[in-house]
């Protein structure tokens, strides 16, 4: 086995594994930094005040982030947690407390839900007084100043959008008609080429929230394109309008009239139809 002997040299093994690891380092460390999405702050991101920054350090020191995440994902489980988190929400964090486990609730937008600092101070001192059944440790051993800093940090975690208890029960498109200038026919022909182009654009720009399969496996805001009732009611013009201007409850970055050509948006409309008709993937 002559080829096998090549692998027996320590030098070659070392060079080989270092090269493979370096390739991964390029993929993880270098390539993502080229994406503006990671660096441009969203409108709701803001730098911390001194007190909030101190609270954030305490949040880290006490290990709050082992049990509380700070990321809302475009999935059904997170539907009631507020707007989906975007990379630009974290540009002032070093490090960002994305978290990896939810022994306690997600805190990405806890300031929207619970804007009262005093609530947090009482809750931190005796979690079971405000939330019977909670398994959170009590922090009444912390000095009052620390509790106030923590509370200031927690209420600063807000998106500014009003929380709604169950977004899924909201009538999604009642009284929701496109303005006159959008009441037009789809000028792009339904063809395999246009469908493919639509798929490419969809996978790139829409799939993160609406799902690759169009099932809206995302938050309640992200509609389910396989929902035949919804797709039956929605005209092409309605879909084109929503793609262009974004949904009624604003979603950052959904202004595709500024990002995609009209042709591209119409191609996406064709592709959206294919989900409910079971054509996607063919």
């Amino acid at each position: 086995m002559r080829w096998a002997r090549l692998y027996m040299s320590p030098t070659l093994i070392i060079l080989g594994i270092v090269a493979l690891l370096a390739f991964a380092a390029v993929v993880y460390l270098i390539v993502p930094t080229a994406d503006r999405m990671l660096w441009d702050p969203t409108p709701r991101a803001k730098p911390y005040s001194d007190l909030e920054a101190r609270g954030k350090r305490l949040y880290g020191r006490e290990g709050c982030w082992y049990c509380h995440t700070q990321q809302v994902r475009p999935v059904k489980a997170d539907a009631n947690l507020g707007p989906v988190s975007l990379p630009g929400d974290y540009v002032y964090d070093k490090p960002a407390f994305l978290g990896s486990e939810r022994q306690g609730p997600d805190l990405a937008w806890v300031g929207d839900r619970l804007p009262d600092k005093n609530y947090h101070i009482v809750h931190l001192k005796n979690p079971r007084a405000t939330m019977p059944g909670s398994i959170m440790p009590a922090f009444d051993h912390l000095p009052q100043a620390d509790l106030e800093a923590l509370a200031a940090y927690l209420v600063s975690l807000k998106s500014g959008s009003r929380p709604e208890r169950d977004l899924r029960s909201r009538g999604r498109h009642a009284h929701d008609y496109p303005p006159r200038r959008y009441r037009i026919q789809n000028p792009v022909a339904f063809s395999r080429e246009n469908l493919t182009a639509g798929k490419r654009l969809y996978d790139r720009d829409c799939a993160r929230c609406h799902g690759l399969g169009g099932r809206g496996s995302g938050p309640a805001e992200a509609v389910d394109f396989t929902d035949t009732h919804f797709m039956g009611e929605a005209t092409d013009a309605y879909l084109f309008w929503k793609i262009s201007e974004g949904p009624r409850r604003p979603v950052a970055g959904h202004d595709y009239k500024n990002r995609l050509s009209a042709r591209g948006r119409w191609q996406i409309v064709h592709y959206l139809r294919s989900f409910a008709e079971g054509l996607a993937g063919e």
Partner: protein
Amino acid sequence: MPTSTEEATERTANDGLASRHAIYSAALWLGLSLTVGTLASFSLVWPDWLRAVFPKELWPYIHFGRLRPVHVHIAIFGWLSTMYFAAMYYIVPRLAGVKLFSERLGAATVWFWNITMAAATVTLLMGMTQNREYGEEIWPIDLMVAITVVMLGINVFATVAKRRIKTMYVSLWYMMGSIIWLALLYIVGNKMWDPSGAFTGVTDPIINWWYGHNVIGMWFTTNGVAIAYYLIPLLAGRPLYSHKLSMIGFWSIAAIYPQTGAHHLIWGPVPSWLVSVAAVTSMMMIIPVWTVLTNFYKTASGNWTRFLGSVPGRFILMGSVFYFVTCLQGPTQSLRSWSAVVHFTHWVVGHAHLAMLGAFSFFSFAFAYHALPRLLGRRGMYSEALAGWHFWLSTLGFVIMAFDLWFAGIVQGTSWISGTPFIQVVVAMKPYMLTRALAGVIILTGQFLYIYNVFMTARQPERTAKPAAPRAA
């Protein structure tokens, strides 16, 4: 293939010094880590119980947020990594056909590492942390870790350089590779050129998980596999089934594993192409895992009576089963659809324990039971019966704990999807958390038997000048 050189070289008092010290140290860290883990696990049922037991002055240091990183760090760095040091100091010279480059340097490495781990325990309990999972240690401790890895690397590479057996057995590749991987990953992943240790924005979680998952795959996995590759031919009394398969396993893990880290951030606020890269490569992990396990199975099969007749053989077999299940779970968890159910739940905690405790700790136990009597020139361990009890308590306790955490995770995940109020899910978890804590007590009992057995073996009078030397496989 493994050959014993114990007959060939003259034994001196210093022989095996480094490996012995590492095994003793690791046993103590194991006891500490699992004690802390068990204490913490009860606070998920009764959050105030530690306050009832300990005086008020200690309250700031003993809540879950402080105990969890101590448990994790001491388990993976204090216990498992120290065992890996022991395995390298034992296995590398035997596969190279020479003595270890320096036993004294090895022992010094172990004791410097013990100081590092003690410092990590104290600082983490005091709340000094960089707040990055698996990378919590503050900068000075990061430096101490890096120094230790360099000391370890000098010893291992110098031994390999003067080897007499020119053909390098697969365990050697894995051990050499692991040292390089750990060094590079630790330095980059912990951002060691910056004492704050963190990157800005979501770049930090991306790099954190690149490091955090790779250190599992390219230090803990690869060293565990190296131990199993060394022990299985010896325990089965026959040569390795296929060297070609072992090459495929090695180069595929080296190519695939470094790309998998972003599966910790599925649906998270990171570029979705990166998550896709991680999902695809995670699925491809089936290649290295199944080639390695096929190789293990084919080497041992046909000789099960001999293989399972020894405690190390049982630990290796059970560890391989756990490794197989880990690597069925891992790829499926990296799929967006399944991640949407189990991410952030106890399922993932069960998965993490499956790899670290079920697979790699079991391989390490097998190594300790195989190597310690030989290092000490004893006929065997102090008590085979205690070793058997250790095996069954660890296996039983862990199986209960793992299934409990997986069921708990599925209940949690599906309840969140159905829109159940969060606190109701927390309360519903309490019976599961109690079961898990009690399973932890069973596991912990087994580990105390192991620690007792290790130290009683060390204190035993030397019965014979020569150990029952393993047959050259």
